[in-house]
C-alpha cells in the first residue's frame, strides 16, 4: 500500500488502548476509516473484574466510545460462531492431543485476517488495521515492532503475503508507553485501561479449569522419564505443557534435589513424563506445512527462530520443504512445546550495523512459520514432544 493514498480501512477495535490509537492513526494518515468491534463470545458477560479480554459488553462500549472520540462510524460484527469453531474448538482439540496451542495466533489466522478481512474486502474495504505491535517494511515483509517487549510479529507470522498486503499495523514504530500517552492526548478514555494478557475467552484466567470443564478429569500417572518410576498422579494430561515446572504436585524431590519438568505428554494413556531440565534440551524442531511471508526458499538457510510468544530467539539452520520446516538450532533450547509456532526471522542487519538505514526496512523480518510438530536432539531419534508424533 502506497503512502499518501486514501484507502477504505476497517479498524478492528477491541475496546483496548492499542486498537483505539491504531484507528486514530489510520484516520490521521488520511484514510477513510470505519471501526468494527468483533463480538467473539455468544454470551458476552456483562462485567468482569480483574481479568481483561476482548469479549465483554464493556469492551464493546469502550470501543464505541473510542470511535466516537476519533469520529468514525462504528459497528459490531458478530464473529462468535466462527471464533468458537476455529479458535476455541481448536484450543480444546490441541490440548486434548497433548499440544500447547496459541489461540491469539489462531485468531489472527482464521478470524481477524481471514473471516474479517475477507468480509471487509467484499464490502469494499482495502485493508484491515489492528493495534498489533509489528511493522510492515517497505519491502512488504512483516517485521518486529520497535518495542521489543510488545512485539507481536510472532502471533502475526501465520499471515500469507496476500493477507499481509491488506493489513495495517499503525503502532509498530512506537513503544507502548508512548501509545498510552498518545491515547491520553487524544482524549481516549481507554488510555489507562489495563493490558489484556490472558486468553480472552477464559474469563477468569483459569485455563486449567476451563479445560477440565470441557475435557473432563481423568486420573493418570506422572512418571520419571528415565527410570519409569511412578512419582505421582494428575487428573488429566491436558492440564500440562511441555517444559512446565510448577503445579506437578510431586511429593518426593528428585534424588539430586533439582526441579523436575514436564518432558512429554501422551494423551492416549494419559501419561505425563517428567525429568531434569537437561532432558528438555532439544536442537531439532520439526513443523507442519510452512506459511511463507517472504519469498519461498527451497535450500537450507541461516536464520533466527522463535519458538513461543515473547520467547527467546535461537540462531539456526532452517531446512525447508513443502511439507514442513526443520530447524537445526546452533545451541539447545528448553521446553519447546508442540502446537506452538516456529517463526523464522531474518535478523535485521541494518538495525544492528547501519543506523542510517531507512525506517521502512528496520526490524527482524519474518520469513516463514510453521506449527511445531515434534522436537529432538541432533542425530538422536526424533522424539515426539507429544502424542502427535512425526
Amino acid at each position, binding site marked *: 500500500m502506497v503512502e499518501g493514498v486514501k484507502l477504505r480501512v476497517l479498524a478492528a477495535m477491541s475496546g483496548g488502548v492499542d486498537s483505539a490509537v491504531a484507528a486514530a492513526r489510520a484516520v490521521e494518515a488520511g484514510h477513510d476509516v*470505519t471501526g468494527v*468491534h468483533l*463480538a467473539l463470545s455468544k454470551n*458476552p458477560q456483562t462485567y468482569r473484574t480483574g481479568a481483561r479480554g476482548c469479549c465483554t*459488553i464493556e469492551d*464493546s462500549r469502550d470501543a*464505541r466510545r473510542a470511535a466516537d472520540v476519533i469520529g468514525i*462510524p462504528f*459497528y*459490531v*460484527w*458478530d*464473529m*462468535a*460462531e*466462527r471464533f468458537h469453531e476455529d479458535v476455541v474448538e481448536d484450543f480444546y482439540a490441541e490440548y486434548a492431543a497433548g499440544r500447547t496451542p496459541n489461540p491469539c495466533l489462531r485468531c489472527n489466522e482464521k478470524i481477524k485476517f481471514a*473471516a474479517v478481512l*475477507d*468480509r471487509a474486502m*467484499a*464490502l*469494499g474495504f482495502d485493508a484491515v488495521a489492528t493495534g498489533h505491535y509489528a511493522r510492515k517494511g517497505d519491502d512488504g515483509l512483516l517485521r518486529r515492532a520497535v518495542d521489543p517487549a510488545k512485539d507481536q510479529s510472532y502471533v502475526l507470522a501465520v499471515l500469507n503475503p496476500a493477507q499481509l498486503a491488506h493489513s495495517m499495523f499503525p503502532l509498530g514504530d512506537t513503544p507502548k508507553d508512548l501509545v498510552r500517552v498518545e491515547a491520553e492526548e487524544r482524549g481516549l478514555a481507554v488510555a489507562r485501561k489495563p493490558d489484556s494478557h490472558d486468553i480472552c475467552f477464559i474469563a477468569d484466567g483459569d485455563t486449567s479449569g476451563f479445560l477440565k470443564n470441557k475435557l473432563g478429569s481423568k486420573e493418570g500417572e506422572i512418571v520419571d522419564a528415565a527410570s519409569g518410576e511412578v512419582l505421582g498422579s494428575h487428573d488429566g494430561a491436558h492440564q500440562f505443557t511441555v517444559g512446565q515446572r510448577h503445579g506437578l504436585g510431586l511429593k518426593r524431590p528428585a534424588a539430586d534435589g533439582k526441579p523436575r519438568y514436564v518432558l512429554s505428554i501422551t494423551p492416549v494413556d494419559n501419561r505425563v513424563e517428567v525429568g531434569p531440565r537437561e532432558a528438555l534440551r532439544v536442537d531439532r524442531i520439526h513443523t507442519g506445512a510452512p506459511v511463507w511471508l517472504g519469498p519461498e526458499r527451497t535450500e537450507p538457510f541461516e536464520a533466527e527462530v522463535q519458538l513461543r510468544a515473547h520467547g527467546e530467539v535461537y540462531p539456526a539452520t532452517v531446512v525447508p520443504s513443502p511439507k514442513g520446516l526443520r530447524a537445526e538450532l546452533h545451541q539447545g533450547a528448553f521446553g519447546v512445546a508442540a502446537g506452538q509456532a516456529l517463526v523464522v526471522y531474518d535478523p535485521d542487519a541494518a538495525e544492528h550495523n547501519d543506523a542510517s538505514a531507512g525506517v521502512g526496512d528496520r526490524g527482524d523480518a519474518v520469513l516463514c512459520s510453521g506449527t511445531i510438530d515434534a522436537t529432538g536432539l541432533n542425530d538422536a531419534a526424533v522424539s515426539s514432544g507429544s502424542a502427535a508424533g512425526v
Partner: protein
Amino acid sequence: MPYLDHAATTPMLPESLDAYVRVARELGNASSLHGSGRSARRTVEESRERLSEALGAKPSELVFTGSGTEADNLAVKGMHWARRTEARNRVVTTAIEHHAIADAVAWLGDHERADVTELPVDEVGRVKVEALAELLAERAAEITAITCMWANNEVGTLQPLEEIAALAEAHGIPVHTDAVQAVGHVAVDFGASGVDSLALSGHKLGGPAGAGALLLRRDTKVTPLLHGGGQEREIRSGTLDVPGIAALAEAAVIAVSRQKDEATRLAALRDDLVERIRAAVPDAIYNGDPVDRLPGNAHFSFPGCEGDALLMLLDAAGVECATGSACSAGIAQPSHVLLAMGAGEFDARSSLRFTLGWSTTQADVDALLAALPESVERARSAGLS
C-alpha cells in the same frame, strides 16, 4: 440525509418541540398546591383531555408514563399481578411482540412462575385468532391477561385486535395492546377497539422520547410498578414531566388529525419504494402483509446478504435504515418475528426495514434506490458469515 428509520424514532413536529420548550421554561410541580403547581397541573390536564380525545378515550383513562416500554410493562405485569390466583396464572402473548412486551412476559414466566402461551402467526405475520379461540375453549379460567400488538414494529402487519378483544371479552379476560407503532399512523379508537389497555410512545409520532402513556379502562385493575407520590391515580408514581406531556399531547393531536392524509401520502411513497426495490433486486422478499400493514413500512429480505452488512453499506452511502429491532450489545440476532413467520435463519438475518414518516419525501426514496443495488451486490459478495 435520507432517513428511512422512522419506526425507530421520528423527528419531533415543530409544534411539539415549541410546546416542549415553552412549558419547560415554566416553573411548577403538577402536584403542588400553589399557583405554579396549579398552572403545571392545568397543562397536564389539558394535555390529558386533548390526547385522550384524539384516541377515543376518556381523560380518566389516560396514565402518563416515561416511555412506551414502561406503559407495556405496567399493563402486562400490572394486570397479571392484579388478577393472578393459584389457579389463574397464565399470560397469553404472541410470537411477534416487541421486546417491551416479550421480555416483560418472559420475566413473569422466569421469575414469577407464570405460565406463558405464545400465539403463533401466519406467513405474513398476523396472529392466528383460531389459536386463541382454541386456547380459550380449554384454558380461559387460567388466563390473567392477553397481550397482542396493534401493528408489528418490524414487518408492519396490522393485527386482528378486534377479534381478539371480542373473544377475550366473552371470558372476561383483559386485553392489552402495544400500539406504539400504530398511534398516529393508522386509525386508533381506544373506546371502539374493545381492548382494556393500550400503550403509546411520544417519539414514534412526532413527540419527545421519554414521554409515553397507557390508556387504561377504569374497571381494569393493575398493580403498579412504581410506588411513591401516588400520581396518576396511584398507578404511576413519579413527578409528572409536564413539558414532555404537553409535547406528547401536541404531537399526538396533530398526528391523529393528519393521519388519514398522511397515510395516503406515505403509502404511495412506500408502494413506489417497494415496486422499485423489486425491480432492482428481483429476488428480494417483501415481508409482511402486502396490503394490511402500516403505511410507512416496507420490510425486505435480501437473500444471500447479511442485513448488518447492507445497513453498514447504506449508512456509508448516507442512507439510514434498520435491520429490525436493535439489540443492546449491537449484535444482530435473526429476527424473532421473521422466524415466527416461518422464515429460515438466513432469510431472518438478511432483512432490512425501511420506515417512512412525516418528514419523508420522494427524494429520500430516490436516494435509497440510488444506493441500494450496489450495496446489495457488495453485501451478497461478502455473503453470510
